[in-house]
């Protein structure tokens, strides 16, 4: 199973995402922002970081990268895509996911071990979990507040597209404690916390994040 990890200028967690793919048993394939080619990968991770310095608006420049044209087409065709943090922001800017991510309500960057509840397991990236399962993974963002209009939020809830929700503490002011969402088809998932930092007992608070990566590999094998 080949899972692409895109590196934009300013991507930071690309090595971590690739490591998580490997630990889950897949082959990580490095994809370059300027290369309009997905090299036949079976799924793609858009990793965290500050693409293009996030100087305009998080993800706003990255969505115009050559690789994104191919990615958007493929995602619309059903290719599994996981956007983590900056990747989530890029997916929203690309209109693969609704809503937007805004400055944390605390106005501070926040890095913490965050408790989440998995709300949906019917996406390509969460099938290894149980609905209602609680996990702890690192969260680190300055602009992680998920916002959308009430109708969109209602639709996301109604269609079971809220993938994960913050528990105990809402770290960034996200509406309805939303930590991650999926598109209608469930192949595209955006997540503000960082499951790729919770895949080894040595370096993560838990190994709870591994499920995102095993989900996709399991799904690909079964497909």
């Amino acid at each position: 199973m080949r899972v692409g990890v895109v590196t934009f200028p300013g991507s930071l967690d690309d090595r971590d995402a690739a490591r998580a793919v490997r630990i889950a048993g897949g082959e990580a394939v490095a994809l370059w922002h300027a290369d309009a080619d997905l090299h036949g990968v079976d799924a793609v991770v858009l990793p965290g970081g500050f693409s293009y310095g996030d100087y305009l608006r998080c993800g706003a420049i990255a969505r115009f990268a050559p690789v994104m044209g191919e990615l958007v087409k493929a995602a619309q065709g059903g290719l599994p895509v996981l956007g983590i943090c900056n990747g989530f922001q890029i997916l929203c800017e690309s209109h693969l996911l609704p809503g937007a991510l805004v400055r944390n309500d605390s106005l501070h960057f926040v890095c913490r071990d965050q408790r989440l509840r998995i709300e949906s397991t019917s996406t390509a990236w969460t099938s290894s979990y149980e609905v209602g399962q609680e996990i702890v993974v690192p969260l680190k963002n300055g602009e992680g507040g998920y916002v959308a209009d009430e109708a969109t939020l209602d639709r996301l809830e109604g269609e079971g597209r809220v993938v994960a929700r913050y528990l105990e503490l809402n770290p960034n002011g996200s509406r309805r404690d939303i930590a991650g969402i999926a598109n209608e088809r469930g192949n595209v998932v955006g997540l503000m916390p960082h499951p790729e930092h919770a895949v080894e007992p040595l370096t993560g608070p838990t190994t709870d994040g591994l499920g995102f990566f095993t989900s996709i590999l399991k799904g690909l094998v079964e497909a």
Partner: protein
Amino acid sequence: MSTAPRKSRDTVDDAIAHPEREQPYAELGLKANEYERIKEILGRRPTSGELAMYSVMWSEHCSYKSSKVHLRQFGDKKPETDKLLVGIGENAGVVDIGQGWAVTFKVESHNHPSYVEPYQGAATGIGGIVRDIISMGARPVAVMDPLRFGAADHPDTRRVLPGVVAGIGGYGNCLGLPNIGGEVVFDPCYQGNPLVNALCLGTLRHEDIHLASAKGVGNLVVLYGAKTGGDGIGGASILASETFEDGGPAKRPAVQVGDPFMEKLLIECTLEVLHAGLVEGIQDLGAAGISCATSELASNGDGGMHVVLDKVPLRDHTLTPEEILMSESQERMAAVVTPANIDAFLDVCRKWDVDAAIIGEVTGTGRLVIEWQGEVIVDVPPRTVAHDGPVYERPIERPDWQDALIADAPSSLKRPASAEEVRATVLQLVGSPNLASKTWVTSQYDRYVLGNTVLAQPEDAGVVRVDEGSGLGVAISTDCNGRFAKLDPYNGAKLALAEAYRNVAATGAEPLAVTNCLNFGSPEDPAVMWQFSEAVRGLADGCLELGTPVTGGNVSFYNQTGDVAIHPTPVVGVLGVIDDVEKRTAMALGREGDVVLVLGETRDEFAGSEWAHVVHGHLGGIPPEVDLAAERWLAQVLVAGSRSGLLSAAHDVSDAGIAQALVEMSLRGGVGATVTVPDGTDPFVLLLSESTARAVVTVSPSDVAALESLAGQHGVPVTRLGVVGAPGADLVVENVYGGTASWTLDELRATADATLPALFG
């Protein structure tokens, strides 16, 4: 506004033709005798461009002119070691950690800029130290920040601290470097002179070491990275080398502005050209910008360089050539590249969207010649700029107040005398700004990125994995107690070394090498110079005794406002190696029933202690005794105990003694312990003394004998204190003046967590 570059008003020909022209050397920070020396070197007056170069390169910040004669001791007293691959004098020292791996690490100060403009000052401090590390061919893998501020409740601290923290986070997070530790210390002595030190750690394979030198006549000098602007002009000379006076003019324009995104590209671009073998020599541009990079590269190489300054990409086309030479615009590097490799080099720059310009070439003339609009504006022997600056033997005098300070021992201070008073005192300390939880600060830093952080704050040392296959890793800690150094600068430096050394060993890593950031007042004050000379002597002696060589460091003078200097603050960073990071020891109390023991001897030592500071506002007496042999034995027990899996937790004992160590271990683990003060031991002394060479450890009950045997082999005293409780259990100390002192974890956590948010929002 004109967009045409301004002509230089002063060429070498002008300097020869008009020797009488008055020059503003004093405004540029040069003394009259230094100006005369430049004229002597050149055989004429300098041009304005040359004057600019000499003034920045001969500033205290760049030339170490007041400290050089003392710093030699780090070389003279260097312990025998085969671990040092690159020693002092390069951008950063390089240490062999085995398996073909090496690490490079260094601390630098950005104190003055951070006071003027906290966010950018702190941000560019990270930027500068990171470029030092990549210049050595290493990939930066972690940063940490020793920070010192004025009183926590002073209004100006509320201006400086949040800006500094946001700047460190804003820059470091965007670079993708985990921030794994550091210090946050408050003391009124830092009110007008906060200390913002930044440490960066890099890893490399032995074969990838690169040095800053321009060799090979005909090779090209490439400037790449950000365009040059007007920021930070004279920052080195004006900001770092002068004392702030109240009511002086605003100095904000001399602070640089950082662009972490460009720095991230610069890291990736630089490592790619280095690993592809496309670079002959490399140098970062920091203080003194192009002046420093060209003169140092030329001086370390074949000795000659010809630079066409018009080729420097500019952000501001109104800059004069003198300003271009002095600009401290961030995120720039200079590389020496052969003509055969230049196309490949420029291709890599293009791949990373990094601007690059060929600004000159290496020559065999022995001169650094810089031309501007076809005229020669600089023609100097590069060594005289980069290395042969003035060296001062500053007057040294032990301050007349030192004896009175030492005589004012803490023995007469009122001590708690009941279990209830001990309980209240410990709570007061737990919530005091220096001991309170630093989560408000560290939660603004990314500690996870790169996925190799094994331990990060509030652990004793940061531990990062270097090799994912073998588990080889390094631990690093920075420490200094400025109060100890004020009472006794010689032993204060040794105490800082001892604490950092112990912190590294507490994680199970074997201490290997030392870096430092020596923060002091004005070298023109003989009392400060005495503190400095004593501290350097202490650190050099201490490193020799511990067998840990100094690999490099940084001196920051002029940390004083008016006549009042900061406490002498020799921040010491110790690096250790751990063969397998899986075996590291963390500080959290864990398994119920594990036995809590203290290693080392507790004496009645309260001078300069956190207790005297917080409870009595007292500073006086003789600081805790330094026993580096005991530190060494303790470290051997901690490392052996970690390797063999004997220790289930370990934590260094320092500020506020065993009480604070137990509180931190309990909060980290979410479980308290029940300990008993041994009969015949004074509970207050046991709990709050700051005697050195101690650690609190836990082992399973069946391993107590093994630990006692291990400690016995090394001559380390062991005292059994008690046992770890059930999850959520209180921290309980029995036999305290006939009573019991206990704290619930909730009250400890609430007390520790409340302080910084209440102060800083």
